[in-house]
């Protein structure tokens, strides 16, 4: 292993407990092990009963699993959060401006900051969106930005998720669970609340309704009950008090979207869609989509309905565009980026490819269009055979890959089979953009439960933790 030093969220290098964890560490020390064991079992039973599950692809259909929940929270002091929040707002603002620019005047391309081909020939670029105006010029109303902390305690943005980022329901359920299991902890700590997220989301969605609609009808659109994130779709619809629709519940007439109700058709103004672009409209995108709505794109382009997020946001969160985000911040906002980008080698460039091939055991190599932790190589955690077989893929299709140094992801004490041990984690805060940018403090903390693993995705055996931002 090339990496030796990790930043531990709870304890400093000298072994002392960091001040923002002092209260929790004391509680953990004083609480009898059997009580904690009971509470952990209770949490498991409750998650099962609530049905807070996700479906696993590639297993027997309808297989549902719990995402393991760890009772040791990830704690972020107020001051640190302030810096993170400012950086995230800045970043999402620049990304939204970038998407608007790309689908209008393309000034950033004209100025030569990003090679035009990288954007316009990107599979995520949607020519259908060229020249289309969207309310408030906002495209990514909901962004889930993945942030990690590296060896010296500094934060890096790993990924900007601007299409259909998920996980916010686990953030809310983890908090609910912690408060139910350990109310005494919340009496002792000033934990910033997150429970108002659904209200903020509804407010955001209503604020971007088509112009002239006074009392917009908002719906959440799901691919269906067998989708891996179905729990979240149903949860958000319920918490916002809006209908959860599937494609078959909607139809378009005269460029207006309606839902089929027991009392006849009813107009829909804003669709918080959790369906990928490709499947939205069989007339415009994939013809075989059974979960879309014929004519939806036309209604959307006519400005009669708002899709949230907009079509074509993938052009900004693609891994091949990621290296240019700091440049966007400088170009559009005239500011220096607050958050770090991870240095990225683009394997389409011969010199970057050569470097990558020479340093595979130290690097993380990712598919440009991949997601969910699939199709990636974590050099330091791989065997020689795995590296060599990956090398062949890379040499055959260099355009498909980027590589980055393996970050020494910070870790946090976590309950594992044999007691408590450090496990690596990341953080996904959610940024809402409408007439204003809003965030709840914190986000979803994901933790890689396997020893040494740096992959936190739930589909790869990751778990979650409650995230506490301590109020000063």
């Amino acid at each position: 292993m090339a990496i030796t030093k990790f930043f531990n969220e709870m304890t400093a290098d000298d072994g002392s407990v960091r001040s923002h964890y002092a209260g929790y560490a004391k509680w953990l020390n004083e609480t009898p092990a059997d009580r904690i064991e009971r509470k952990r079992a209770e949490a498991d039973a409750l998650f099962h009963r609530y049905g807070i599950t996700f479906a696993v692809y590639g297993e027997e259909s309808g297989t549902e699993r719990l995402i393991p929940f760890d009772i040791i929270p990830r704690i972020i002091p107020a001051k640190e959060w302030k810096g993170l929040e400012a950086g995230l707002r800045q970043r999402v603002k620049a990304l939204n401006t970038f998407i608007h620019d790309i689908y209008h005047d393309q000034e950033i391309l004209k100025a030569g900051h990003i090679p035009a081909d990288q954007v316009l020939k990107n599979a995520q670029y949607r020519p259908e969106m060229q020249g289309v105006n969207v309310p408030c010029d906002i495209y990514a109303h909901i962004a889930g930005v993945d942030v990690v902390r590296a060896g010296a305690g500094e934060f890096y943005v790993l990924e900007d998720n601007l299409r259909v980022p998920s996980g916010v329901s686990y953030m809310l359920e983890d908090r609910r669970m912690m408060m139910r299991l350990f109310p005494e902890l919340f009496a002792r700590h000033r934990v910033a609340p997150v429970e108002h997220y659904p209200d903020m989301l509804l407010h955001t969605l209503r604020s971007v309704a088509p112009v002239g609609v006074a009392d917009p009808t908002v719906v959440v659109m799901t691919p269906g009950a067998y989708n891996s994130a179905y729990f979240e779709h149903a949860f958000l619809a319920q918490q916002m008090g809006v209908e959860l629709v599937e494609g078959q519940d909607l139809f378009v007439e005269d460029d207006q979207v309606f839902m089929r109700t027991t009392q006849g058709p009813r107009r829909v103004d804003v669709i918080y869609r959790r369906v990928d672009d490709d499947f939205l409209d069989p007339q415009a995108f994939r013809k075989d989509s059974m979960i879309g709505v014929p004519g939806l794109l036309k209604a959307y382009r006519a400005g009669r309905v708002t899709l949230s997020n907009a079509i074509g946001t993938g052009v900004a969160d693609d891994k091949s565009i990621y290296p240019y985000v700091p440049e966007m911040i400088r170009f559009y906002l005239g500011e220096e980026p607050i958050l770090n980008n991870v240095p990225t080698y683009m394997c389409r460039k011969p010199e970057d490819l050569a470097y990558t091939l020479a340093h595979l055991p130290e690097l993380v190599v990712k598919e440009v269009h991949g997601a969910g932790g699939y199709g990636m190589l974590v050099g330091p955690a791989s065997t020689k055979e795995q590296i060599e077989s990956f090398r062949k893929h890379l040499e055959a299709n260099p355009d498909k890959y980027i590589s980055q140094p393996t970050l020494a992801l910070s870790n946090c004490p976590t309950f594992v089979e044999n007691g408590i041990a450090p496990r690596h984690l990341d953080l996904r805060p959610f940024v809402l953009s409408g007439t204003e940018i809003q965030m709840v403090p914190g986000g979803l903390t994901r933790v890689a439960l396997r020893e040494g693993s740096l992959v936190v995705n739930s589909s790869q055996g990751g778990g979650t933790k409650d995230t506490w931002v301590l109020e000063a």
Partner: protein
Amino acid sequence: MLSRTADHLFWMARYMERAENTARILDVTYRLSLLPQNGEDVEPMWAGMLKIMELQDTFLAKHPRHTTEAVLEFMIFDRDNPGSIYRCLRATRENAHAVRGTLTSELWETSNATWLKMRDLTPAKLWENGPGAFFEWVKYRSHLSRGVTIGTMLQDEALRFIRLGTFLERADNTARILEVKYLNLLPGTDEDATQANDYYQWSALLQSVSAFEVYRKVYRDQITPLRVAELLILRADMPRSLARSMKEVYSNLTRVSNARSAETERLAGELESHLRFGRIERIFEVGFRNYLEDFRDRIFDLGCRISEDFLIPARA
């Protein structure tokens, strides 16, 4: 409300009610099968029950004989039997899952927890505690589900479609329970039967629909087939009777009424008033089994019409 949502609510309720009534039918038949008078001859009893539940063919495709074990395991666990309690509880949960955002969290959790327990039950465990304990459990889960529905759901359209599903299913199922019993037991035809056996037959039937005490209270007299039929068909104050079920169907239907449901409402009202003003003697004159079969046909027709008017997504 979305048509699809209404559809899931309607079927969620129907499957829960069906699971309960299946448990009730199995319970009474199982208890009768244990009576000494029935001796070794329990097979015709089970065969008759399966016939009225329209599962005879499915059963015979798998099992050569109607032994108690085979029938009970078929009706409780068999994943290929659409009428098994396993399948009913799974369908209840799947429908609830599809609209969990419309349900109160307590209602969803009730349905989910019921399913999780059913999923973990094995025949070995069933026989260890006795089938009676399991039937009791199913009934109580259904009671709980109904109680949580009434106790937590907003009194809006969602609740109406749930209630509609519950009572339409119950109307059908109570009719079937009556048919099972009357199949070999038409009043006055079985002269050899001992008085004691008769008594057990009728009291078991009453118990299966939680009506034994009710009968005593209402009639304060001997149990006779005519009165049992009257209680379960025409008495609107008896919660599981056909009259009560149809009264609920009709009133819930009128509250969700839409532009094209007029004929469906009329038919439901017609059936309800037949029951409200009917006389049991007249029903026996017509022929009891014919009456019940005709009733179930009408219930089936109503179900189809409700689907067409409200539940199948339509443009106009």
